[in-house]
């Protein structure tokens, strides 16, 4: 070929394909709770290669890098604040303790307003 691609582009491309096969390989290993972090770690490395080499962040000004990081920074805020809600709920998803097969009705957020109505109604 008269105009071969720069070596760093070829190496990045091969690294990306290698990481793709690696993440598929790891997905089939019984790592338990580690499967998700491993998959996300490999995805992040792939995204970093695309960002740094293909999107030329390595040669970009600090302002451009700040713009590139901003979206992920706010995404982090979004996930963090949302997690502080959902991870601290006594019951999520709603109704998970009310199994229709066992017939057990344990404490349940829908039952709270019902009780309030029961208390108020006899007074009227």
């Amino acid at each position, binding site marked *: 070929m008269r105009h071969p691609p720069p070596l760093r582009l070829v190496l990045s491309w091969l690294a990306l394909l290698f990481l793709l096969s690696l993440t598929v390989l790891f997905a089939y290993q019984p790592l338990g709770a580690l499967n998700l972090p491993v998959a996300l770690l490999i995805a992040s490395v792939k995204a970093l290669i695309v960002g740094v080499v*293909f999107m030329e962040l390595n040669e*970009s000004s600090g302002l451009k890098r700040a713009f590139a990081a901003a979206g992920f920074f706010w995404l982090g805020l*979004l996930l963090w604040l949302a997690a502080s809600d959902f991870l601290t709920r006594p019951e999520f998803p709603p109704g998970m303790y009310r199994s229709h097969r066992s017939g057990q009705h344990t404490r349940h957020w829908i039952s709270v307003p019902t009780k309030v109505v029961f208390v108020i109604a006899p007074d009227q």
Partner: protein
Amino acid sequence: MSESKPAVQYATLAQQHEAAELGIWGFLATEVLFFGGLILAYCVYRYGYPAAFAEAARHTKIVIGAANTAVLLTSSFLVAWAVLTARAGQGRLAARLLGFAGMLGLLFLVLKGYEYVREYRDHLVPGMDFQFAPDHLGGASLFFIFYFAATGLHALHVAIGIVILFLIARRAQHGAYSARYHAPLTVAGLYWHFVDVVWIFLFALIYLPGRSG
């Protein structure tokens, strides 16, 4: 093309390019949050229905998904190469590379469409005779709602990217870009790479869970 002079509000072409690139990076930050909202919904419901999500993810077509990942990574590589060649004044080679990258984008959409057809036949489309193991029906249907919303919106981005790549390829063919003037090409490339990055994460969240169980 008489693009050798900067637009009236800029002192130099370099300043104009800097503004254009900052603009696309700002746009991409909003795109991160656009897909980020979907990913948050995924995280919340995967936390709520871990077993159903693993079982549903096992029903996705990982061979097509992995092939499509390789297709997008390769097209991203071609676009990165094309941007460099066009800046070096090799417009015709850049046009061929961009055209090939666009064709890979089309291949991605064809494979995605074939995957959708198979999912429709497997009764995995929520709202269209969705069928799943009764224990996981609710969680699995949430997974597949996320799957179709996220991959559908991503496919829309791919389709827009393909059109942009072909338009840019035609302009590169006519020698529109050079070391001094290349902002549209660079901006189009950044958009295409971002679409690739989104897919990298969607692939990890959609196709990989539940494979080892």
